[in-house]
C-alpha cells in the first residue's frame, strides 16, 4: 500500500494553486485519515468523524436505492406490457434501471462536487462531507425520467443558494436535497406534473449503445426495443396518491392493468409496501427504507425521536381526518380523507421523508424536546398537504421545508424553558 502513499505525495500540487490543492487534499483525506494529532483540549478523540457519519447514511440508503433502481426497469417494461411479473426479465430490467439512473447520479456529483470544490478553494477550506449524502439523496427524490439538464440545474441551485450562500455544511437552513426537488417542482411544472412522469418509457443513447454492444456478443435486442413503446391497455401511470385523491382507497385497489389477457392489480398493499410502484426512485420500497431507517437508529446516526414522532404525527392527523369523515360523512366531499389511516403509510413517500429527510441534523431541531415537536408537526402538516390540498399530490417535501423554518424557533422555546429553570434558582 506504500506505493499509493508515495504516488499521492509525488502528485501533491503546489499550495499556491488553490483549486488543485483543495482537490488533491479532498482526495487525500478520503484515502487516508490525516496524521494530525491533538494539540489543545482532549488528548484523545472519538473515532467518529463527519465522513464516517455521512457514509453510514449513504449505506443506509442502499437498500432503497437498489430496489428503486431495479424498479425503474420494472415500471418501464410493465407500462409496455412486457415481463409483468416483478422478477421476470431480471437482467433487462436491472440494466435498464442502471443505465437510466447512473447518468443522473454522475451528473449530480459532477455538478455538486464541482461547485463544492470551487467554493472550498475560494474560502481556503477543506472539502466538507455534506455532499456525500446530498449527492445520493438528490437523484433518489427525482422522477426517473427527469431530463439530465434539469437535474444539473436543480443541483446547482440547491448547492449554491441553499448551502454555500449560508456558509456551507452545517450552516444551511433548508434541506439541500429537498431544495433541489422543490426547484424542479416549481420551476418546471409542465414537465414534472401529470401522471406519466413517474415512469421512463423511452430508451436513451446509453440503452441503445449497450444494446448494440450486446448484439455483438449474440444477444439480439437485449432491451426488447423492437416492441413499440405504446402503453399497455388500462395503464395510466397514475400513482396511488393521485388515484386516492380522486376516488379514495377503493379506486387505488380497483386500478388494474390487462397484460396478455391477464389482469394485474399493481397497487395491491403488498406491492405498495415492497415498492414496485411508479414514483421517485427512492420513495417506493417501504421495506428497503425501513431497513435503512432501523440501521440509522441502531447506529444512532439519525434521531429516533424525530422518526417516531413523525410517525405519531402522521397517525394523529390521519386518524383525526378519519374521525371527521365518519362524523360528518354526509357533508364531506373530499374522498381522500376516507382512506383508512394505516393505508396512508403504505402510499407515497412518508417513510423516505422520515428516514432520510426529516432526520437531517443540521436543518432539524437540535434539542431532544424540540425533535419531538419537530417530527410530530411534520407528520401533521404533511398529511394536511397530502390529503386536503388538491394542488399537491404529496406533502412531505413542503412539510419538511416548512418545519425547517420553524426548527430554530422550536429550539428557541426549549432553550427559553431551560433558561427559566435556571433563573428560578437565583436567590432573590
Amino acid at each position, binding site marked *: *500500500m506504500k506505493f*499509493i*502513499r508515495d504516488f499521492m505525495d509525488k502528485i501533491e500540487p503546489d499550495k499556491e494553486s488553490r483549486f488543485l490543492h483543495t482537490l488533491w487534499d479532498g482526495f487525500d*483525506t478520503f*484515502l*487516508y*485519515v*490525516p*496524521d*494530525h*494529532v*491533538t494539540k*489543545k*483540549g*482532549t*488528548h*484523545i*478523540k*472519538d*473515532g*467518529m*468523524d*463527519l*465522513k*464516517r*457519519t455521512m*457514509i*453510514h447514511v449513504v449505506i443506509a440508503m442502499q437498500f432503497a436505492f437498489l430496489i428503486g433502481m431495479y424498479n425503474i426497469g420494472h415500471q418501464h417494461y410493465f407500462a409496455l406490457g412486457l415481463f409483468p411479473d416483478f422478477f421476470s426479465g431480471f437482467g433487462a430490467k436491472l440494466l435498464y434501471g442502471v443505465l437510466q439512473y447512473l447518468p443522473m447520479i454522475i451528473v449530480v456529483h459532477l455538478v455538486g462536487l464541482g461547485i463544492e470544490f470551487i467554493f472550498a478553494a475560494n474560502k481556503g477550506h*477543506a472539502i*466538507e*462531507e*455534506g455532499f456525500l449524502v446530498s449527492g445520493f439523496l438528490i437523484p433518489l427524490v427525482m422522477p426517473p425520467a427527469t431530463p439530465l439538464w434539469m437535474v444539473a440545474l436543480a443541483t446547482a441551485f440547491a448547492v449554491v443558494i441553499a448551502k454555500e450562500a449560508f456558509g*456551507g*455544511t*452545517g450552516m444551511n437552513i433548508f434541506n439541500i436535497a429537498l431544495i433541489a426537488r422543490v426547484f424542479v417542482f416549481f420551476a418546471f411544472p409542465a414537465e414534472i406534473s401529470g401522471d406519466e412522469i413517474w415512469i421512463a418509457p423511452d430508451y436513451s443513447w446509453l440503452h441503445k449503445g449497450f444494446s448494440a454492444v450486446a448484439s455483438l456478443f449474440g444477444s439480439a435486442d437485449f432491451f426488447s426495443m423492437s416492441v413499440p413503446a405504446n402503453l399497455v391497455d388500462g395503464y395510466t401511470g397514475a400513482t396511488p396518491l393521485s388515484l386516492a385523491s380522486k376516488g379514495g382507497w377503493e379506486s387505488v385497489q380497483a386500478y388494474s392493468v390487462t397484460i396478455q389477457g391477464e389482469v394485474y392489480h399493481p397497487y395491491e398493499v403488498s406491492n405498495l409496501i415492497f415498492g414496485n410502484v411508479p414514483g421517485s426512485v427512492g420513495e417506493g420500497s417501504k421495506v428497503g427504507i425501513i431497513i435503512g431507517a432501523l440501521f440509522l437508529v*441502531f*447506529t*444512532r446516526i439519525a*434521531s429516533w425521536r424525530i422518526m417516531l414522532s413523525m410517525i405519531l404525527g402522521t397517525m394523529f392527523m390521519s*386518524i383525526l381526518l378519519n*374521525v371527521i369523515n*365518519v*362524523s360528518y360523512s354526509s357533508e364531506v366531499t373530499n374522498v381522500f380523507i376516507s382512506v383508512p389511516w394505516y393505508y396512508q403509510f403504505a402510499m407515497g413517500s412518508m417513510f423516505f421523508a422520515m428516514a432520510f429527510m426529516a432526520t437531517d*441534523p*443540521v436543518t*432539524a431541531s*437540535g*434539542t*431532544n424536546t424540540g*425533535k419531538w415537536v419537530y417530527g410530530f408537526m411534520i407528520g401533521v402538516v404533511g398529511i394536511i398537504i397530502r390529503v386536503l390540498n388538491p394542488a399537491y399530490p404529496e406533502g412531505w417535501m413542503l412539510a419538511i421545508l416548512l418545519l425547517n423554518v420553524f426548527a430554530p424557533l422550536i429550539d428557541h422555546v*426549549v*432553550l427559553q424553558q*431551560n*433558561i427559566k*429553570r*435556571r*433563573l428560578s*434558582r*437565583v*436567590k432573590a
Partner: protein
Amino acid sequence: MKLSNLTKVTGLSVWFSSLSVINFAQGSAEDPSSANSLVILLFTCVMVLVVFLAAIMGDKIIKLAAGKIRKDSEAKEFGLIPSIKELIFGTQDTSQSKKKITKLSRGFDIKLKGKAKKSISIYNSATYAIKPTDYKGLQPIPKMLLKEGAKVKAGEKIFYDKGFEGVFFTSPVSGKLIEIRRAEKRAIAEIVIQSDGKNSSVKFKAAAPKSLGESGVKSQLLESGAWTAFVERPFGVIANPTLRPNSIHISCSDTAPLAVDYRYVLDQLNQKNIQTGIDALNELSDKVYLNLDKQANKSSKVDQFEGIEINTFLGEHPAGNVGVQIHHTDAIAKGDAVWTIKIEDVATIGKLFNEGVYAPEKIVALTGSIVKNPHYVKTRQGANIAQLIEGQIQEDNSRVVSGNVLSGTQIAKDGFIGAYDNLISVIEEGNQQEMFGWILPQTARPSISPTFPWRMMELARFDANTNMRGEQRAFVVSGQYEEVLPMDVYPQHLMKAIIKNDFEEMEGLGIYELIEEDIAICEFACTSKQPLQGILREGLDYIRSQN
C-alpha cells in the same frame, strides 16, 4: 398537609371513577344512535388525558407551594401522585441513612488499558516546581517574593497575584529555589525548587480549627499556601478569601479514563487528618459535602467522618466530576459561589492544623498502556517526573499528560506534575496516517458510536493515541453532547452562544455551572472535532472580565 401514599392512591382513584361516571352519564344522555364507537373511544382517550394532566398539574402546584416554605428535598414528599417505588418497596426514612445515592444514566466511560496496579511506593523527586499556569485566573507575571538562589522551607511564600488579595503560593518542600523558567513575553512558566530531602516546614499553629474560628482558620490556610487547593465555581479559579461560599464540595471521586481508585487512595490517607480538615472546612462554609464515586462508596472509612453530608454518584464519566455533582446537589445560580477541593488536600489541611506543618502530599498514579509497571506513588505537589518514568515508557513516540487524557496538560518527559493533578497518563502519539481509517478502522478505538463494533464489548479496554481521527468541521450532529453529559444544559447551544459572544444567553444556558473538565467528554465525543474546552474557557474569561 402531607398525605400518605395510601391516601393519595385512594383519592386519585375516587376522583378518576367519579369523573368517568359523569362522563358515561353524559354520553348515554345523548342520542345513542348518532354516536359511533370511534368518536366515543377518542372522547374517552381525551378525557383520560385531561384528567391525568389535571392530576399532574395539581401535583406540581402543591410541590411548588411546599417548596416555598420548606426545603426542596422535603417538598418532594408533598403532592398528589404517589411514588410507585415507595408503594412497592415501602417508604425509606432518608434522614437515617447518611449517604444519598444519585444515579446518573447519561455518560460514557472511556476504558483504556494501563490502569495503575494497587501498589504504592514513596517517590522523592530531586526537584519540585510551582507552575502559575496551573491556576486559572492568574496574571501571566505574578509578583515574586523570592529570588533565584534563596533557601526555602515547605510552606514558605514564593509569589502572589494581585487579583487574589491575600492568597500566597508557597513551596511544597524545603530546599533551594534554583530557577525561574520563563515562557513567551517573560510570563513565568515554572519556579523550580531543589529539594534538600528534609521536608522541613515553616512552623504554623497546631490547634483545633474550632478554637481558631473562621478568621483564624482562613489566615492559617492563606499563610501556608494550603488555600490554593480550593477551586471556586463559577470560573474554576482560586477561591476568593473574602467570600463565604454556599457550600464546599470535597471531591473523592473520579471516573475519567485511567483515573485513580479513590477507595485505594482513601486507604493511604490519614483518617485523623481528614477529619480535622473537614472541621476546618466547616468553619469556612455552612455546608460541606463529600462526593463519592462507585469505588469510594465501597470504602468503610467514609462512614466515620463527621460534619459532612455524603453524596454518592453512580454512573459513567463524568459522574465523578465535581461540577456534575454540584449540579445535582446544589446547582450554582448567578451570584453564587461554591468551592471544591480534593480529599487529599483536605488531609493536607488537617495535617496543617494537627501538626502545624505544611506537607502537600499527593497519591499519584502513573498509568497508560505503554507504561511498563503502572502503579501508585506517594509524593508531594509539583514533583518532577523524570526519575519516576525512567525506564518505564516502552515507546519513544509518546506523550506524557499530567492529569487525565481528557482535560490534562501535556508535560515534557522531565516536566512537573500539575498542582491539582493526581494522575500521569502516558499515551502513544498518533502521528501516522491510516488508510481508509474513517470507514475501515484497522485498530480498536474508544468511541461512543455504535458504528464501531468494539463498543459492544463492554469489558474491552482500548489502546488510544493522540490522532485527531478526522478534521475539524462546523457543528453538524445534534444531541451528541447531551448523550454523554448528565446535566440539564444544552452544550451545543451554549457553545454557539459563546462563539457569538451573547452574554445573556451564556448565563441563561448555564455557563456558570461548567468548567473545562465537565465538557471534556463532549469534546472527546464530538464528531466535528470542535475544541469545546477552549471555547468554554474563552466564554468564562469573557464573562469574568465583564463582572
